[in-house]
């Protein structure tokens, strides 16, 4: 028994080493850099400061967080409104049909999200298929400006994050004991009432997991607002990228990354507190 445990620990060592080297140390580095002052032309000076964190509370940058939260919340709302009914139907479908639906949900993962975003750009272009179709129908006579709008950005977020909501919802609904719904119906509850008082509360953990899985990445996906929104808006992910790569303000970028990390940790903590799926990780 003891040797077995030793073996297990030994097997885990590479994983720990990997995590410490490539996750832990870089994060510590980011945290460290965030407390230094920016060098006039390049890099950081050796002065310690809290000004990078103070700058986050500047109205300009606070607004970036606000805009990101709003986009993330809106994405979560739309994604859950589409995903829950979809997952419900999927869980209730015939097994053969269910497999097909599952494949359809998973298939987009076979290509990178970036490539799929370029796909959307081609679809939405002024001289793209969607505009050509609308023109052919006679609905419009001039191409609509679909790309580089806030709507296009939101579409990108919803499209990319949809599977992250469908899958946990599906798991929760599929795993539910349907006898409880039957019991409610037998006792005279209407279908709506049975759904609201039995199905929904029993599957809420799946929804919470889905919300976390949607909310957390939607704060960081800067390429969507760059590509589909024409970089006209700025979200927290874009701001971090901008500060590090173009604005040459590494310590501020690091402070923003730490703030985002804290926000993410808070979301995960809230998710645990509200009794979401505990086996999320």
């Amino acid at each position, binding site marked *: 028994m003891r040797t077995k445990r030793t073996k297990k620990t030994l097997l885990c060592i590479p994983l720990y080493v990997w995590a410490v080297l490539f996750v832990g140390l870089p994060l510590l580095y980011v945290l460290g850099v965030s407390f230094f002052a*920016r060098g*006039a*032309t*390049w*890099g950081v000076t050796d002065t310690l400061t809290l000004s990078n964190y103070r700058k986050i509370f*500047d109205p*300009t*940058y606070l*607004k*970036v967080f606000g*805009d990101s939260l709003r986009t993330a919340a809106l994405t979560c709302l739309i994604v859950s409104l589409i995903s829950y009914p979809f997952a419900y139907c999927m869980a209730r479908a015939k097994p053969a049909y269910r497999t097909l639906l599952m494949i359809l949900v998973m298939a987009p993962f076979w290509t990178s999200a970036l490539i799929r975003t370029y796909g959307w750009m081609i679809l939405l*272009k*002024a*001289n793209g298929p969607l505009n050509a179709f609308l023109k052919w129908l006679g609905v419009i006579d001039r191409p609509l*400006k679909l*790309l*580089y709008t806030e709507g296009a950005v939101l579409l990108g977020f919803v499209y990319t994050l949809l599977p992250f909501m469908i899958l946990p919802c599906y798991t929760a609904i599929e795993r539910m004991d349907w006898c409880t719904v039957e019991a409610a119906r037998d006792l005279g509850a209407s279908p709506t009432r049975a759904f609201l008082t039995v199905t929904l509360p029993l599957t809420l953990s799946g929804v919470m997991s889905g919300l976390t899985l949607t909310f957390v990445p939607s704060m960081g996906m800067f390429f969507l607002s*760059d590509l589909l929104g*024409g*970089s*006209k*808006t*700025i979200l927290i992910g874009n*701001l971090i990228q*901008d*500060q*590090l*790569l*173009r*604005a*040459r*303000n590494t310590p501020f970028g690091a402070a923003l990354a730490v703030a985002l990390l804290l926000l993410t940790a808070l979301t995960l903590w809230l998710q645990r507190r509200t009794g979401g799926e505990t086996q999320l990780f």
Partner: protein
Amino acid sequence: MKRMLPLLLALLLILPAFAHAQEEKVLNILTWADYVNGPMILEPFERETGIRVNYNYFDSNEEMLIKLQADKAGSYDIVLASDYIIDIARNEGLLLSLDKSLLSNWENIDPVFQCQFYDPENEYTVPYVAGTPLIIYDPAYVTIPITGYNSLWDESLKDSLVIMDDARNVIGITLKAMGYSFNVTDPGELAAAEEKLKGLKPNIRLLDYSTPHQAMISGEATIGYMFTPGVVWALAERPDLMVAYPEEGMGFGIDSLFIPANAPHPQNAHAFLNFLLRPEIAVNIAEQQAYINCNRAADPLLSAEFKSNPALYIPAEILGKTEFIQDVGDAQLLYNDIWTRFKQY
């Protein structure tokens, strides 16, 4: 084994000294992807000298400097990057002084592109290509006369402009439109520019740093302000587009080659620089990369097509007094703030 260790370490220290005398036939280049042509430049160089070229990439000038600073051991022999970042790298002491006795083709360089702010004494760099951002527009949609940066603010251009996603360039042309320099550091002048910049937002269709020409080609945007290659590529696909030289004064940029101070193969690096300075190679650089040629010996070899391109061959009297975008020190923070707010309007 323990006793062997110091010996081994000592050996490791001595080895590079020997290697220096007989340089390994390797050259490590660090630059943007596709910026040095393989079949036209790298392969002929490899065939002729037997030196194997390793091509390493960066995405932005800033990333280059990060890589170069982190690389204490020295793994790059040639770096090709932009003027302002070379200036910073030079001040950080990262550049090797060139040995002109190894550069027999040195005189081929057009002096117009030498002795610039990033290399005033002309001792570290070889200019690769130059460029000036220009306005390009579709005359079928743009009906007002386009004369300069101020034209971009016209109300008739609502939601039709593509421009680079870059604080310094966009705030820069706003300053120019107001009669200031690209490199303003005065907070008052910058605040005035921010007010003016607000007026440009409704006209912006999209901001794109690397592929703005695509929006012009597809018709997504009908007017654009972009770097030389973007203008050239857009014109190649859409000859009906027109080019305008901004009357308020044009921006200018030179991408240059340098050898890092800790380059492992400096002799190979010099051989490569000298190779690039040959007129028959330099002509390929300008034509393949779609930039302004910096080699006067290559001038007679340029094709008629190249010389008739309004973005590549700009007469000196039209080019006039150009200005580089340079590092502005701490004022960069003001530019960053303005840029973030600009995106929020």
